């Protein structure tokens, strides 16, 4: 069955995408399942413009945003960073994907979505503003604060500062 072949090829990567946005892997899999149903429904509308993987990935991202909007009340609050509990991780820990994911999960939902959409998926602020129904200024502000929190939590800023001090 061709549909199953497509699923087997792209499902691990797409579940990884969904997991970036959704904290729990089970919920992420639910989102991925809904995303694949939509992919197969809309398969006839794919015009072979761009890569097929990119097309599936966009559908998955939109499905994740839709899921987060349904399940949670996403607030794009400018002061969310100060009020959120920043988890600390040991500095000598490897830059493993799961480690990074933990820090991303610790971000407020608004920060996380803007950061993932811009830094990972490559969307522009204008597109992010339209997708999340926020202003471009809010998108830029959220991205800046998300980066700063991630760098702090991952210890990258301290490492960079020490490198700059030694040099």
């Amino acid at each position, binding site marked *: 069955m061709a549909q199953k072949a497509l699923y087997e090829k792209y499902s691990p990567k797409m579940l990884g995408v969904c997991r970036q946005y959704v904290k729990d892997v089970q919920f992420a899999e639910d989102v*991925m*399942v809904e995303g694949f149903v939509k992919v197969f429904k809309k398969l006839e509308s794919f015009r072979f413009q761009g890569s097929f993987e990119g097309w599936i990935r966009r559908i998955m991202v939109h499905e994740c945003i839709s899921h987060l909007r349904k399940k949670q009340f996403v607030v794009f609050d400018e002061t969310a960073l100060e009020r959120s509990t920043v988890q600390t991780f040991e500095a000598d820990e490897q830059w493993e994907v799961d480690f*990074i994911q933990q820090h991303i999960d610790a971000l407020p939902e608004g920060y996380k979505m803007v950061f993932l959409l811009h830094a*990972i998926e490559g969307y522009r602020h204008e597109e992010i503003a339209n997708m999340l129904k926020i202003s471009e200024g809010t998108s830029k502000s959220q991205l800046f604060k998300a980066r700063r929190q991630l760098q702090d939590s991952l210890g990258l800023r301290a490492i960079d500062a020490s490198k700059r001090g030694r040099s």
Partner: protein
Amino acid sequence: MEKFDKLMREKLEERQIKPSENAWERIAEQLPLEKKQNNTQKYMLMLAACFIGLIVLTITFWNSDEPSLEPTQEIVDAPKKKVVPKSDFQEEVIEPASLENSEVTSVTVPEASNTEKSFDPAPQEENEALNTLAFVKEKGELLEQPTLDAIELKAKEVLQAVEKLERSGDVAVTDAEIDALLRAAQKEIFIEKNILSDEGVDAMALLNEVEQEIDGTFRDQIFDALKDGYLKLRTAVADRNN
């Protein structure tokens, strides 16, 4: 900052997580349902198309019944072409110049003949008359037609009348007088055929006459007989003069 974003992208972009075993089953469960819905929609569309087609066929069938009446109209229209304009006959007035001791002083074209050939009633009346003719046809109640013997007998009478005229006086019989006698005989024939009566024109007899027009051979026979009588008469007159 772009360096940090690039680092994050490299780490996260290629991240893969194996889904659980039942994930595909959950997807597959939803796909057949969609197909089933699509099939249901297709069946509904096909059913609607068949229903519309049936309606169109029914309307077409009903409309096709109306043209079947047209052949009847064609029957009605056919005699109309044979009607000769009235003006052609109104001027045919023959007045024998000098015919002494003659029973016929002036002969006009019989009204019946006029009526027969230039009968031009309102179209509705004509249609009614022709419909009646069609009805008579259907019932097989064709009116009696004068036989050829009767016509020949009449021609002989005309011949005798001309001979009588010749015998009674030495006046030469002109062609106009002979024509007048022939028309008088024709009038009598029409009277015998009940086309002309005291009350006026007999519609059924007139229809019978129309029937005769359709059957042109009979009419030709009448005039052939009259023509034969006329030729015999002329020959007799010529022989006597010689």
